[in-house]
């Protein structure tokens, strides 16, 4: 069960659990990042942090530390 931050650009996963600071978890929910959703890592910033992800029709930037609480099930490509 990898964390979202461990995915490389182009990889997709299904969110299994969202944990962490309540305010952070709530913000994830508000942005549509919740259990059962599919996420895709789109890009990494030049220094590897933060990461750009797609969830639904939104693009989000989140720091690795923040993405650490999101665990995903890798969806095989193709």
């Amino acid at each position, binding site marked *: 069960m990898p964390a979202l931050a461990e995915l490389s650009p182009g990889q997709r996963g299904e969110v299994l659990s969202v944990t962490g600071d309540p305010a952070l*978890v709530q913000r994830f*929910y508000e942005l549509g990042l919740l259990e059962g959703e599919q996420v895709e890592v789109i890009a990494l910033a030049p220094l590897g*942090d933060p990461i750009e992800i797609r969830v639904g029709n939104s693009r989000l*930037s989140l720091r690795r530390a923040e993405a650490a609480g999101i665990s995903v099930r890798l969806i095989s490509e193709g």
Partner: protein
Amino acid sequence: MLTATLTVALVGNPNTGKSTLFNALSGLRQKVGNYPGVTVEMKKGQFSTDGVTVDLIDLPGTYSLAARSPDEMVAVDLLLGRRPEEPRPSVVVSIVDATNLDRHLYLTSQVCDLGLPVVVAVNMTDAAAAQGIKLDYAALSERLGVPAVPIQANKGIGLTELTKAIREAAEKGSAPSGPAFPELFESGAAELQKEFNGEVPAFLVRRALIDIGGYTEQWLIEQHGNGLQAKLTSAREKLAAAGHAVPGVEARTRFAWVRSAVAAAVTKPAVPPVTWTDRIDAVLTHRLWGMLIFLAVMFLMFQSIFQWAKPLMDSISSGQEAIGKGVESVMPVGPLRALLVDGVINGVGSVLVFLPQILILFAFIAILEDCGYMARAAFLMDRVMSPCGLSGKSFIPLLSSVACAIPGIMSTRVIENRRDRFTTILVAPLMSCSARLPVYVLLIGAFIAKPGSPSWLPGLVLFAMYMIGFTVAPLVALTLKRTLLHGAPPVFVMELPAYRRPKIGAVLRRMWEAGKAFTIRAGTIILAAMIVVWALLYFPYTDANGESYPARIEKAEDAVKENTDRLKELKEKDEASKKEPAEGEPASPALTDDEKAELEKLEEAAALPDKLNGEWKRNSLLGRTGLWMEPVFRPLGWDWKIGVAAMASFPAREVIVGTFGILYDVGDVDPKAVGDDKAEDEAKEKAAGLTKAVQEEWAKDPVRGKYGVPVALSVMVFFALCCQCAATLAVIKRETKSWLWPAFTFAYMTTLAYLGAMLTFQVGRLVVG
């Protein structure tokens, strides 16, 4: 029957086109509403439709009504009719993005819980159509229980239908029911509600239950004591035990509601098409290309505020000088004329001179924000800023501050987090701005760039001065974030909006608003500071014999004017006589004794106005204060004159150059002419005269004679770190809405500057030996 005035609030996610809709509806009839105790401003507009006047309030863009700060609470309180300044809205318009309804309707579902009539404005229908997304508005309205109106805010399409829907909703006055929460949640919230005897709206009680550690919880505990904490915790535990843990229960309930509506009303292509945003993002957030493009954009932006603004700023200064001279020529000498010319006209000029930089920076920021690039810039720079406790959003404000802290501080509005924003505001003045340059150039020219010293040394010293700001600012930021502005770690999750073409009208509006805000709100404070410092340097204006200095100076100047031609003639004759005669020509005759005496007298008279001016300023209130304060300046290696010049530069750093000129009897020197080869001859001569005068004056003194270089460095370090800039302080006051923060900024920067200058001088003295 409908009342003649309707209050309508506009709510939506950031980047939904909310402001565009607001502007399209209210046109130019707008004003800014301020709310005590918070830094948010909300725009209010007005329009009429069918004899009904609509007061429109544009609430700040937000993803949710779960308030986490006093700033966010203002919007919620306003919607609940709990702000004394505003009536409760009759209708709430929830604006959503047609291409992303699944997420945007989440906020709509919260708005539906407010107990107010709601109208959903579905914006960007053209973008949705381009992506093959089809919407059935009748089905959407039915499922949501509120009217949903398609609009294109940027083209003004659908506004008539929207205003009609708003009127009808107000007429009906019925609030939607919104999503149904689990039974257990409802009963838990109802039980909690009993605690407050109906004093707190149900909406807030539910928020307190859901938002762990949120603002509503903090506020209610403050009001009703710590006993409430235990009750909240036990209610939450009960919910968690039944599988309805907060905050997840809210997300699941609302998204289930949203999804059922979307499923009924939206048809999406099976495979989402690759959008322009995907293609552009592949380049702009690319690790290499994205970075190169970012650097190019930043270079262009920086260059434009640094260079393009210069001709405009110069023409403002020349205009101000011309008006000042015009007034001088028609008014008699006296305090009134001096107040008008040196206080008011000079003050207004020094306010207006910032406008070009502000307007150019805000044009850039408006374009970058409107097209969606601002968020990408913050994404690229986040890792660079995170070590000092800030986020990528602080990068552009701090970079802009290298040109000038004023537009830099004003641009911190892009930072939503209050503590991050305040930290950025407080360290922005440490960035080495262009007003420090004349001070550096003058002192480097006088003491560092001496014949015989290595040619790279002046450049190195200048570089070091810039590095002071770049080093100290992150350290101060980190300290502030750990102490004064300490708090729970902010959430840095940020949406990267779809790219959009910026609208010229919106850009011009942003420039206009920024310019107006600065000129009116900050301008008056700057003007007041200028007049106070002018008065301190003007009074008393009589010498020991009770004669007026300005009158004596004018008389001396008239005498100089009368004798200009004679002085020139004698000088030329004198020079000619000293030259070796060319071959075959007779030698020029030497000056006679009478002529020599006359030349001497005339030269003395020519220097008299500047000498009198120096004497006057040295005896002014500020001059005397400086003399009295000399012990304070001594550890920095300064004499009282340097101290007075530093104090007189409170309105703006570059003023020190002119004040040095006056105190060293060379007259008022234009700081722009220092080190500028293209300056006019007269200005250049004065600047050169000042360089020489500083060298000579310091050479006369045992301390500054021996330690000229350490003293010069100490003055430069002081100016690198101090906040001698009334405009910066005025803008900090405006942006933080409190005098506390500008006072703090001035205090901490002056302390840093003093300590830094002292360290520089003391170490320098040891090195020189």
